[in-house]
């Protein structure tokens, strides 16, 4: 079906708003549910205020900001050390937090 350009533009804008509305609605739905945790997210270790956040907390906090979760067993301990330098530089992570994340990944890597 051939539609006039102006009609197509209006249609495009409406669809765009519709999609945005769907996304926003889904977000609002999740606000009550999303609460605590997801099956795809590893539950963080217990932490104390004096110790700050654990490596698992920091891993959950930083890594998912840019890409899908990478599981600790996907790489060996020495490989994680290399990858974490790359990620520390690329994402500009604080050194202390990057070290905690590395410790967590290496421990969970099983190697």
């Amino acid at each position, binding site marked *: 079906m051939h539609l006039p350009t102006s009609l*197509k*533009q209006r*249609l*495009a*804008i409406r*669809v*765009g708003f519709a*999609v*945005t509305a*769907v*996304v*926003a609605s*889904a*977000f609002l*739905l*999740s*606000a009550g*549910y*999303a*609460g605590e945790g*997801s*099956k*795809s*997210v590893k539950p*963080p270790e217990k932490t104390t*205020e004096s110790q*700050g*956040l654990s490596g698992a*907390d*920091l891993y*959950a*906090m*930083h890594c*998912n*900001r*840019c*890409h*899908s*979760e*990478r*599981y600790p067993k996907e*790489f060996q301990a*020495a*490989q994680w*050390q*290399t*990858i974490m*330098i*790359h990620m*520390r*530089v*690329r*994402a*500009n*992570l*604080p*050194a*202390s*937090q990057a070290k905690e994340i590395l410790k967590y990944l290496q421990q969970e890597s099983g190697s």
Partner: protein
Amino acid sequence: MGIVQPRRAAAEVSDEDFKKLADAVAQLDQKVETLQQTHEKDQETIRQLQRQIGKTKAIASDAQQKADDATQKLQQPVNPMVDLSNAATHNVVLAGDAEIQFGRTTGQHSSFTLADFAPIFLYRANDNILFEVGFDIRLQNGAASLQNNQTGNLGSQTSVDLSFAQLDYILNDYVTVVAGDMLLPLGTYQERGAGWLNKIPDDPLPRSILPSSGVGVLLRGAFPVGKAGDSLTYSIYGVNGPSSVDGTGNSTYTDNNGNVMPNLDLGGNIGITSSGNNANLHNDPSGGGRLGYFHAFKPHYDFEIGISGQRGEWDNAGNRDWSAAVVDAAVHVSPYFELKGEYINTWVETDDIGTFKPNGWWIQGSYKLAGLGLEMPYISNVELVSRYDMLNDGLGTKTTRTTAGVVYYFTNTLQFEGDYEWLRSRGPAAVPDSAFILQLSYGF
């Protein structure tokens, strides 16, 4: 009373003999005493000798230790600054992504439009030094020259682009030195959103008015703030910067086919001319940087805001500047919802039309249906995504685009993306109409 004298035995020992015997006994006593003194002297001599032997052994041991130390020093590298405790931990990791894309733009044929392999090689020399290089290898149609300067398609060509090649040296907890061909921290998209990381197959429109990389040196680091995961980040760099295609400060140049093309080149200038001469295309490097703040309420609930910019000359004479300013922001609410975007403004000084200002912005929202908590894997693996982007090239052409799409996660690194883009473009450099794009991406 009479004294009884002992009777001498049989009168064989005379007084004289008795005296001799007494003298002999006395001499023996003297000899024994002399021998005893000699023995004591000998023992003292032995003790002295033993002490000397001990000293000799200590000297010999010390000499051996010195010889060992000297040998060890000879085996060390010449550079005394190298910390050997960090050596011999080399490790190489292959990361990156690959994509295959199918698409159709309104008014054009549908086709497989892209086959892309983008490996990243990470070489860790020790705990503080990493060399990383990223390539972009693509297959595309080859070109054939036809009559009247027309171009046809013949065979295929493989293009290999060096996306970045940089050395990272962690100086301390707060400063990392990066040198080489670097992705630039103008906003965050180029460093964190390209390839399989992005949930939409193509880049936001206004990213085209920024350079993706630059050759130079960068210092960056982050300071943790509090204990909740907050941090203040900085990056500051100097790179060769943009350059002029024909060397002048004019806004356009004309190619061999009579086409009028933009004269500003954002993607080159490594300081060596196309003829191979070792000369920078202009005299001074460009300077830039980014300052950002990340605040976390708790894991998966955070926001980040940053401001970045770059400025430097772009024509050969060094009379005209190119400048850019970028504001970026990202919000995460739960593991499922993300909202992010950038506002970009640039200024291009020219000889012929004064200063023009290409600018634009984009915003992208996404939601993972896993957040609905449905026990339906095929639904939970879906993420909805939408983006609005706008570009004004500063020369009379304005383009807006609305994109809606889905991402389906087969695994955490294998994903299918499908998008439809409604595009509206007006002006002398208007771009093609709406399109749909399907893409299979794999990150490794």
